């Protein structure tokens, strides 16, 4: 057993902290993009809008069947090409790994969030929509003010659990050589050779954040079990 020297972590902390901030920023951005797009995807399927809903269905099935790392590689390669076409001159526009990561995680998570919201939509009692119609609400108003708030409420524990998984998955941007928490640790470990301490510290940080978050979700779930008992 080598001598472990955890004082190295204190010296490395500013750099690790910036890595952690990147991981959190990526999680937040992916959450926002994923929820907005995911809600659209879910609604498209809920209303079975022809053609679009089949495309969305296929997209979700595809995304859910291939590994996230392969998706990252795909987007890393495709996004510059697509942007080049959009801009009109046809040449690929390199946007760098950081933006690629944000776009990829947003689009990737949208598939998972939309599955959750879709089931949430199914879970809301049909009577709610009928009652909204009886009150002469338009379909848009009914979904905006009656249905969606209930969907979000019912699905929020699962959405949050999924977000904790998302936070852990952001570590995979390591394959794009980005400096997230894991990336920061591995870059430092290559410099100072203190690989054991670095990775143990990273594991501890993830463990603390994720278990604290899941405890919180657990509490939330218990509270909902109480208030939601009347249907």
């Amino acid at each position, binding site marked *: 057993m080598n001598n472990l020297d955890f004082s190295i972590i204190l010296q490395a902390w500013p750099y690790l902290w910036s890595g952690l901030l990147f991981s959190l920023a990526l999680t937040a951005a992916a959450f926002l993009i994923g929820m907005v797009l995911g809600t659209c995807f879910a609604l498209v399927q809920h209303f079975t809008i022809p053609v679009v809903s089949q495309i969305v269905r296929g997209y979700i099935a595809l995304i859910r*069947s*291939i590994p996230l790392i*392969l998706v990252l*590689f795909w987007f890393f390669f495709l996004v510059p090409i697509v942007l080049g076409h959009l801009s009109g001159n046809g040449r690929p526009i390199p946007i760098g790994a950081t933006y690629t990561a944000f776009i990829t995680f947003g689009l990737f998570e949208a598939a998972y969030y939309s599955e959750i919201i879709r089931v949430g939509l199914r879970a809301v009692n049909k009577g709610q929509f009928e009652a909204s119609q009886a009150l002469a609400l338009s379909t848009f108003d009914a979904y905006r003010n009656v249905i969606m708030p209930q969907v979000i*409420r019912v699905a929020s524990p699962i959405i949050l659990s999924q977000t904790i998984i998302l936070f*852990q998955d952001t570590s*995979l941007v390591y394959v794009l050589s980005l400096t997230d928490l894991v990336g920061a640790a591995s870059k430092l470990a290559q410099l100072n050779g203190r690989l054991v301490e670095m990775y143990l510290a990273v594991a501890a940080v993830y463990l603390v954040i994720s278990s604290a978050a899941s405890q919180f979700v657990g509490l939330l*779930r218990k509270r909902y079990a109480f208030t939601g008992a009347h*249907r």
Partner: protein
Amino acid sequence: MFEVLFEQTADGQRYIDWLLSGLGWTLALAFFGWWIAFGVGVVVGIGRTVQNRIFAALARLYVEIFRNIPVLVQMFLWYFVLPEVLPSSFGNAIKQIPPPWGSFFPALLCLGLYTAARIAEQVRAGIEALPRGQTEAANALGLGGYLTYRHVILPQALRVIVPSLTSEVMGVYKNTSVALTIGLMELTAQARQISEATFQTFTAFGAATLIYLALALIAYQSMMLIDKAVHIPGTTPVKDMTGQELTEEVQQAGTLPDAVEIVK
């Protein structure tokens, strides 16, 4: 589009051979990883439901640790950190395992134990979904703790959770790609290698994507077949796996109208 896969590589093989060897590693990792995960997961899942405080606490600790550290970090812990913290003679022996196996075994252990934590939670949910009467009836018949689990609880719980295990099966084979970070040349790594060697990125990633899709389809269909074969008559058939998981979770929260009853 895929002609390039049949061209010669620098080492005298064809690119498709690289892809197939990658597929082999992916399948080996997923298959053996799954059985490790299932074995450990069932034991830990039982541990989450027993009366024995020490066993229950250990099982809880296991699940907390393995579920809350990203699989990539766990991969690094097994591959880089474990040989360093073991006694040096033992650690050096581990470092001397020749190349493909040197990253295969850590990856296998990592995937198996990581997935086990997730399976344990499913097993626990399955056991807790059974009516209490099952245990009470077993006790009334004079069965002890071991026999109750062996003959009454487990046979029912495991059959109930088959649909939700589908997503864990999918998870195992998708997570095999994380093994590329510790140098295992599995399917995704080979696809990247081909794309770098030929600049035919569309073809390389496209072929890998098609293979993963086929694997997903096979995994999904076989789990459906298994579910049909072991389904407990009189319980609600489950069609959509996410739906099932969600309905269960939301049902626990008690906010769902018309929730699917698992066991009637």
